[in-house]
């Protein structure tokens, strides 16, 4: 089959936020009509504004909308979409949803339900990988069901150990335990988080690797027997097991290990007959031994860094593969050029224990312009970030000929990025990107925890200027008869409230 020509004419995107927007943009570039779905909380979300068609699929709560299989399928049928792109999270790794799509004659843009199911069960996948000759971390192969086992297994492996949700991902339901006496409470917390996040309380246990790096390999596999890898992503900058900065290439790896990991990742994918885009995650110890961690059977949040150095659009590749086209490139054609870094901009307050900070974005200025800057945004000025979902606002990505140039670009971009009305992690990234250890590429997964122990120098630099600004503002207000109600941009949103109330009241 030719890789030119039509793929689909309409694709429904069963997701929200920046990733829904990202997929809409890929569709538009391919001449495919993007269909959005949205919850009541997302009526004015960016992914709705940029879509061609959009259907409300339920209430704010994810189980009543973005996780509601029936509602998503109904919207797809109504719109006449031929395929569904799940993004990441929500239904992206739900093999029942994939089976349902298969049954309804809708193309699911991702792997088949069987491969997904195998890889989704973390303990099962470890067993398959071990069999296929892929190195795995010592630990249990089945979820822990009895609390007695918990203690005995942990003691046998030796502390520290890791507790992990069987259906997990994104750091949720994940706990590191250093001492025997923390084991039970950590297990309970992990089970409860696993239950509330994935509707599956099962948790398993693994040996904890010291000074570990978290490095993953992107793969693509078509329906014509071609499986390729697109280099690695270094994801060791994590906070509470949640990635916050990713980069490629890894400043830690050498050429030989990189090549070897790529080959193993392809082997892992082939072992389960994997199709479409996937990511094989490894933990790499200080001596560059690497172990299979899990396979994410979907697009990763951090996929843009790979796109920036290879020039390959992964979402377009996913769509082409799902439409049965062969890959446009072989392993030899994939040449990484330069260096790319991603910062995940969250609505969280770094000065207050990273508490989520939903609310109205009153002002927003995003960095733009110049070479090598990309902002995959999911919000806009005037939007109210709902409290019901993951607080990821956007992803800022920079590219440079060298790692140093990519870092300098990121620093510049962060200095232009201003969000007002809600708190964001931008100031936190400014700290990371200017930290000597980060700049020298000398870090592992402990970086953030160590950083948080460092004392923050209290910024008093521009305090006098801030006071002047407050004085000038008060002066101007008192003299010009301006009051806050009519004078600020915010007042528009207040007026909007009036309109909405009115519309709903009539």
């Amino acid at each position, binding site marked *: 089959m030719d890789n030119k020509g039509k793929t689909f004419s309409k694709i429904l995107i069963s997701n929200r936020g920046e990733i829904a927007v990202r997929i809409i943009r890929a569709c538009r570039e391919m001449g495919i009509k993007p269909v959005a779905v949205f919850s009541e909380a997302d009526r004015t979300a960016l992914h709705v504004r940029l879509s061609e068609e959009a259907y409300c699929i339920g209430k704010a709560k994810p189980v009543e909308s973005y996780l509601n299989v029936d509602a998503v399928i109904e919207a797809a049928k109504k719109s006449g979409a031929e395929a569904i792109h799940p993004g990441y999270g929500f239904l992206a790794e739900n093999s029942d949803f994939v089976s349902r799509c298969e049954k309804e004659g809708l193309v699911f843009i991702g792997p088949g339900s069987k491969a997904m199911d195998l890889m989704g069960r973390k303990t099962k996948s470890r067993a398959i990988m071990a069999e296929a000759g892929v190195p795995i971390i010592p630990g249990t192969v089945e979820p822990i069901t009895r609390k007695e086992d918990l203690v005995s297994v942990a003691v046998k492996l030796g502390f520290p150990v890791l507790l992990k949700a069987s259906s997990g991902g994104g750091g*949720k339901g994940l706990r590191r335990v250093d001492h025997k006496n923390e084991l039970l409470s950590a297990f309970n917390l992990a089970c409860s988080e696993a239950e509330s996040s994935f509707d599956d309380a099962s948790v398993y246990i693994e040996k904890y690797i010291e000074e570990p790096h978290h490095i993953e390999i992107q793969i693509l596999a078509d329906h014509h027997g071609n499986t390729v890898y697109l280099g690695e992503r270094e994801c060791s900058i994590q906070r509470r097991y949640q990635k916050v900065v990713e980069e490629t290439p890894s400043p830690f790896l050498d050429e030989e290990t990189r090549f070897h990991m790529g080959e193993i990742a392809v082997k892992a994918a082939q072992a389960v007959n994997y199709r479409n885009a996937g990511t094989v995650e490894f933990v790499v110890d200080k001596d560059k031994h690497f172990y299979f961690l899990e396979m994410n059977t979907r697009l990763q949040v951090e996929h843009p860094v790979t796109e920036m150095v290879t020039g390959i659009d992964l979402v377009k590749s996913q769509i082409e593969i799902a439409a049965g086209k062969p890959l446009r490139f072989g392993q030899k054609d994939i040449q990484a050029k330069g260096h790319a870094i991603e910062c995940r901009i969250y609505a969280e307050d770094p000065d207050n224990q990273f508490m989520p900070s939903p609310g109205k974005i009153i002002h927003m200025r995003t960095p733009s312009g110049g070479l090598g800057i990309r902002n995959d945004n999911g919000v806009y000025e005037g939007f109210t970030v709902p409290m019901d979902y993951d607080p990821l606002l956007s992803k800022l990505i920079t590219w440079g000929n060298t790692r140093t140039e990519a870092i300098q670009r990121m620093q510049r971009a962060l*200095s232009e990025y201003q969000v007002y009305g809600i708190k964001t992690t931008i100031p936190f990234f400014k700290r990371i990107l200017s930290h000597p250890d980060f700049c020298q590429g000398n870090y592992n997964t402990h970086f953030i925890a160590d950083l948080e122990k460092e004392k923050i120098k209290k910024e008093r630099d521009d*305090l006098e200027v801030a006071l002047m600004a407050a004085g*000038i503002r008060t002066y101007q207000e008192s003299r010009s008869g301006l009051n806050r109600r009519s004078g*600020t941009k915010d007042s528009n949103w207040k007026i909007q409230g009036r309109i909405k109330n009115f519309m709903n009241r009539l």
Partner: protein
Amino acid sequence: MDFSFSVGDREYKLKVKKMEGNGILVTVGKKKFHATVDFICPDEFIMNINGRVYDVIINAENHSYSVCINGKFFEIEKKTALQLLGTAEEKSGRKEVKTSMPGRIVEVLVEEGDRVKKGQPVLVLEAMKMQNEIKAPQPGKVTELSLNPGDSVEANAHLFAVVNEMT
């Protein structure tokens, strides 16, 4: 025009005077600053002090200013009798804990009246799919705690207070 502002527990006296054109003279404590001010909209303006450029976003909510100078945030309070009272209260050793985000209480780990160490978890709050431990800001006795698991809280809601009886 004279103002009194506070940042944290420090107080600052300001004088603001209009000069020729876009010029303005501000005295902060004993220092004098000559600036030009150009408004973009009422809550955004550019201050230029001897060539140095400051891009300002500022929002006033009652007597509280939230100021963003070239991307750096500052919280400034206009001094009133009420705030002086608040400061007095702080000094009495009571620290109130509020939530910056709306969410749901998952667990309450201590009881009202319990003595806690600084940093000891008091509540578990779930918001935006993450569980967050809310910790004691100082050692002392937990007071004004009346939340139960399952309760929903709004942004800026009072959660509990910790009274340090040593002061």
